[in-house]
């Protein structure tokens, strides 16, 4: 009896070891946009709960950092809140002989954050650009109080920094614009500073006022709501992207297909962004 138990235990142990060797964990690395990091982490958590054999590792660092990691091979997926630059594409072509694969996975409206007590409720795109380039330095120039405007922005590895510069500021940022690492840090700073202004992804805006934005003096001002972003009425709308070196296959393809499915897009809405379709 004792011997039979030992044989049984050894057989079970052998079977477990052999079967476990077939149960390898697929690992997917995701790196990049700080705007997308919460969304990416939520996707990863939910997906790993439903797919035990897959491990999804998510880190931020900024869109630029993610794309560099994609080019040097240290990540499978690069999250980016801007499109790839031509110089980055050239590096990808030269290293991998590939144009890369761009997958829009969510929509975002870049929100202009104001302190809750700021009397300003709406600004034109031009005014926002002039504020962040340093041409407008006092709130009274845009109908507010006679106080200096304090600027908070992102570091230059951020896709949000690049997108905002190319589409709104259109020139250099003001040297007085304080650089902060991430939208959450900007929201925190604006919350504490009555005369400040910042910008970032819509998902992070809690405890601050969302400034309505209008294309010009004669247009309607829109706030960054679901409807206004869906219909592209809100002037500072952008796609959020996943970039890959090559066409996805295997576990990566299944993961991306899930992100783009109704279930994955539901997470987008829960986090505060907007579905890609």
């Amino acid at each position, binding site marked *: 009896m004792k011997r039979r138990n030992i044989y049984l235990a050894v057989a079970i142990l052998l079977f477990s070891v052999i079967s476990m060797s077939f149960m390898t964990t697929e690992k997917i690395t995701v790196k990049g946009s700080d705007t997308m990091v919460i969304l990416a982490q939520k996707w990863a958590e939910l997906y790993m709960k439903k797919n035990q054999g897959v491990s999804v590792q998510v880190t931020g660092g900024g869109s630029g950092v993610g794309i560099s990691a994609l080019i040097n091979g240290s990540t499978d997926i690069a999250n980016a809140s801007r499109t790839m630059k031509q110089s980055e594409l050239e590096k990808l072509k030269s290293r991998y*002989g*590939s144009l890369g*694969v761009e997958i829009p996975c969510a929509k975002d409206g870049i929100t202009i954050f104001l302190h809750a007590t700021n009397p300003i409720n709406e600004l034109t795109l031009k005014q926002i650009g002039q504020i962040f380039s340093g041409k407008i330095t006092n709130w009274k120039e845009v109908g507010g109080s006679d106080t200096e405007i304090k600027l908070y922005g992102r570091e230059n590895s951020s896709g949000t920094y690049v997108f905002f510069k190319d589409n709104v500021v259109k020139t250099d940022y003001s040297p007085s614009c304080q650089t902060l690492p991430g939208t959450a840090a900007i929201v925190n700073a604006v919350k504490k500073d009555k005369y400040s202004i910042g910008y970032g992804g819509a998902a992070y805006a809690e405890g601050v006022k969302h400034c309505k934005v209008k294309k010009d003096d004669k247009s309607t001002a829109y706030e960054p709501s679901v409807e206004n972003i869906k219909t592209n009425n809100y002037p500072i709308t952008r796609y959020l992207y996943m970039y890959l070196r090559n066409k996805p296959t295997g576990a990566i393809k299944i993961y991306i297909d899930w992100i783009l499915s109704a279930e994955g897009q539901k997470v987008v809405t829960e986090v505060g962004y907007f579905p890609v379709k």
Partner: protein
Amino acid sequence: MKKVLFVLSLLIATQLFSQTRVDSLKESIDDHKMRLDAFDERMATIVSDVEKLTKIKISGYLQSQFDYYDQQSANYLKTANSIIPTGITNSFYIRRARLKATYEATDGVKFVLQPDFSTGNIALKDAYVVINDRWLKTFSLYAGQFNRPNYEVEYSSSSREVFERSKVVKALYPGEREIGAKLEAKPTQFPLKVQLAFINGNFTGTEAKDADNAKDFMARAVYSLKFQQQGIGIDFGANGYLGQIRTKDSKYIQKSDLKIDSLGYAGKHIPKSWIGAEMQIYWDFLGGLALKGEFIAGKNTTIGTNQTSTITTKIDTSLTNYPSKIISSVAADGSFTTTTNTSSKVTMPGNNHLYEITTTKTVTKANLIRNFSGYYIYLVKNIGKDHQLAARWDNYTPNNFDKDKITSYSDLTFNTLTVAWNYFYDENIRITIGYEMPMNKTNNTTFKKDVIDNTFSVRLQAKF
């Protein structure tokens, strides 16, 4: 009454004590606030300094290499990148050691400095200012020493899949760089790149100094097509070179048909020009595949220079029988020899005299004008993320004339097959193993066999 007085004095004491505590708390808060303000001031200075430092970017790479050469004979000299002493069949050496400093002065203005520290050789590679237009975001103006606008020249040695550039590109653009000004246009909304460069036209890799008043002109245009669904990208374009070079020591020119002609006098300019067509195809096929090629043809020029040798002999008669200067007749290759003799009297012991005769022979080579052509084709296949196979076939015909009449090594046509395997250990380290097989055309006269000059190489590259 006593009780009232007691309570009153207790109240006053409590009040005084509280006031003292509040005062001391206020003092402490003020003290901490001052320290925080001082800290803020110091932080502002540190932040400002750090921001200035982030404008400087340092990058570079080091290539350590081992070569094993097949040699024709003990007297054979490798003519690619370095002169190897005779009889040596293998070597370790530093092929490239580059450090590049980029300083972004303001948005749109960059300074770039890149020296190269190879074994026994320190050279300046890049030294230029680039100004990017901030209005249209289309134009860039380079001034200084920079890469000539050509695909293979501009493709960094740290990224290239095989060891060296093709023979035709090395022959036309020695040293890769030139000194001058270059204007680049890359519209953001249109996939076209145009480059125009005005350059000295005399850069040889060892000699950077301008030698004449003539300036050369280069132009290149490349258009990119993207078929995203199919995962295919195609870049295609054309380039051209128009220039001239001043002759130095010889008035004779040897043309492509090996006939000799005279310019009339040394110092006249002779033209050089060529055109090229290029294409690069990228296909996201099983991990990535690239097919790249270029064809160039035209007229190239080599300036004839002097080669001088001196012999000193002692004789016991005077210089009377020695002519002071003789110029030979022009040889079949356009060269001629000038022999000069000078003498000096040497007093020997016992009051005897000898004469020291110094004979200087200067061979002046003819200037060469050659109709040439050349091309290269690369096939690069990525295997997974870390491995890459590459093969290149390149042809260089320095002289399109009848191959049976070619007598000079410099006119010899070469076809070269290079194969390489690259392993990307991580984002900084790459190992390359490759084999280069140059095959020269043979003829019935001078070059009856293929010169044995294959090279097996192993390279370790570290890049940061």
